[in-house]
């Protein structure tokens, strides 16, 4: 949320108002204050350290070991990483995951359009629409996935029933290698839409009306207003959402796990090689074939990937994100 807040603040700061600069810096009274602050964040910090940081370190260590079927592990050095580099299955999962991340970004323009529509001054029942869009976000992913699995059923699903009205014979969406990935991306976008809309709506509402009035006086039409005023001032929100969306896609697991079919059905799903994600593969190796060391290596590689992608995004933001 930090970025959005900043975006909103940036929008406000642009309103002609007494600038907060000029005043002398406050004296350094922070010792006691900081003490309280640390005390207050200690529970969260401790939780993070125990349940996030420590497992990450441990997983890092395990990625250099090989596990026995009943615990016990021995140091194997870089063996897991060597196997990883040569594993076609990992490569395919990586390609799939990157495709998920890339296509998942299509949800952003869609969310902006919906947010802009919801932001129209005379629209009635905004909160109802907002709630409707937000429902998928607060629904359990597994439940969402189950319902979509039924909708997508090639023989008895609602999607194909609808298509048949227009004389189109729909495919087996999640079992056909040609359509499975796109069918899943659509669900991911749909599931994340509500959250993104709310973020963008907050961003839009923080843009002062005066800007639009000024633009209008300068002769800008609605399109020019959107391009020259809305988009630049919304860019912090866009950046925030795109970072979260990419990280979320790279970690995709539950939707695929449930929708691809559970247990045996997933293993004989002909589309599986095209939709297996990196985290899905990790789960498979860690809990199905019990190759925990190798599984650890897979997630460490994913961790590096996420860090790299996020760093790239932060680097690129300088070119297009305006903080007012």
């Amino acid at each position, binding site marked *: 949320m930090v970025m959005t807040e900043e975006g909103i603040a940036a929008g406000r700061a642009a309103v002609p108002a007494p600038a907060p600069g000029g005043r002398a810096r406050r004296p350094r009274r922070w010792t006691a204050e900081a003490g309280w602050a640390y005390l207050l964040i200690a529970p969260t910090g401790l939780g993070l350290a125990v349940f*996030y940081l420590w497992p990450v370190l441990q997983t890092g260590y395990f990625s250099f070991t090989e596990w026995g079927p009943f615990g016990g592990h021995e140091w194997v050095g870089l063996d897991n990483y060597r196997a990883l580099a040569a594993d076609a299955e990992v490569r395919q999962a990586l390609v799939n995951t990157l495709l998920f991340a890339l296509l998942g970004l299509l949800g952003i323009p869609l969310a902006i359009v919906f947010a802009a529509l919801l932001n129209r001054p005379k629209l009635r029942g905004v909160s109802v629409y907002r709630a409707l869009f937000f429902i998928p976000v607060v629904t359990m992913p597994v439940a969402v996935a189950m319902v979509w699995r039924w909708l997508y059923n*090639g*023989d008895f699903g609602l999607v194909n029933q609808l298509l048949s009205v227009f004389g189109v014979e729909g495919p087996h969406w999640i079992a056909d290698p040609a359509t499975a990935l796109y069918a899943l991306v659509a669900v991911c976008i749909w599931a994340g839409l509500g959250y993104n809309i709310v973020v963008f709506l907050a961003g839009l509402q923080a843009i002062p009306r005066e800007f639009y009035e000024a633009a209008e006086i300068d002769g800008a039409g609605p399109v020019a207003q959107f391009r020259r005023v809305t988009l630049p001032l919304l860019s912090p929100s866009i950046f925030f959402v795109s970072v979260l969306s990419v990280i979320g896609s790279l970690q995709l697991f539950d939707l695929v796990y449930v929708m691809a*079919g559970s247990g045996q*059905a997933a293993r*004989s799903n002909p589309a599986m090689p095209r939709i297996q994600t990196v*985290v899905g593969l990790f789960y498979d190796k*860690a809990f*199905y074939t019990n190759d925990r060391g190798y599984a650890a290596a897979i*997630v460490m590689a994913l961790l590096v990937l996420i860090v790299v992608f996020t760093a790239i995004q932060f680097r690129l933001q300088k070119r297009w994100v305006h903080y007012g």
Partner: protein
Amino acid sequence: MWKAVRTGAAVMAAAVLAVTVAGCGADEPTAGADEKATLSYAVWDKNQVPVMEELAAAFTEDHPNITVEVQLTPWADYWTKLRAAVTGGAAPDVFWMNGPNVQLYADNGVIMPLADKVAEAKLDLGVYPKALVDLYTFEGKIYGLPKDFDTVGVWFNKELFDAAGVKHPAAGWTWDDFKAAAAKLSNPAKGQYAVGANIAGQEYFYNTIYQAGGNVISADGKKSGYDDPATIEGLRFWTDLIKNKQSPDLKTMTDTHPIQLFESGKLAMYWGGSWNVTEFGNNEYTKTRVDAAPLPTGVKQATIIHGLANVVSAKTKYPAQAWEFVKFLGSKPAAEILGKKGPIPAYTGTQDAWLAANAKFNGKVFLDAVSYAVPYPVSRNTAAWNDEEFKQLTKAYTGEVPVEQAAKELATQMNALLAKE
């Protein structure tokens, strides 16, 4: 990834907890078979919990000092949880074991060899089907006493057979009879098929592989049988059915499981086990419409037999009492209790109770099958090559690669995995 790491952390935390708990209660092991003890007994089938509790109570009646606590872990988590418990030193004293896992547990010293105790108690292992005794024998020693067994047969929809004017399948029918019937029972335009060629070993392709005279794994468990031409014929049986549109394709079966298609009258036949009696007996549609027949005969007659066994943890604090309980579970009186409410009991001569309890179907088919049954193929790390079976066979069943090529690739991969065992 966080989710995954968190799961990992939870497992680890559970393991740590298990170690601590185990450490707290480390009193000296007691030797006597009748000294006071509480045994934990881990099972995975919710439906069998009542009859397991009944057995536990019957045991306590004879051994008042020993109580048994039945612990249910659903199938989906059973093996994961058991591994964590074993790793943490908190394995249950007695637990259910299956074929694919027994060698892994025996080889790693997790379960106790029972050979000496069987000899000491002068138990006759001949009262159990030989295939099951073999399944639980590792390096010449028996590791578990068989509890129940299951075999595979053809469940068929009488109504659909009659409508198509096809004679009901019966003992002595052959692959040719099956194929002729399949042709008449299919109408792909209407979504009507003869059978669902599911990629499942136990109920499907393992059976036809042995019927074709092939094998999944060599008798010594060291070599894959998938490059044997006879084995490939056993697989072709299924890929041909899909090719001829007498079975739905994998895409359809991914979306809707064959058992659901069978229960909605879309499939005329369903290859299934003796365990399906409960499912088909309770389902409104199948209750009155289906019955069981033996599997068709190929080059020879074969069905896969599998069954569970009760095993004792190698680390139990009460080895004598645990053995006493397992011995009771393997006895005739215990088998008689089991048959009335559970699966087919393994003890020869106690199966009538099961037949009587499931009289609406021709259950005898599954009992007769024991005489020509083949043990479920396993090795030390069965799960590893089971995974490979799915990967390679999926390509053959979709027609992406010819079945010979997929089978040979599978043999190569499986042999590599077997060499590592």
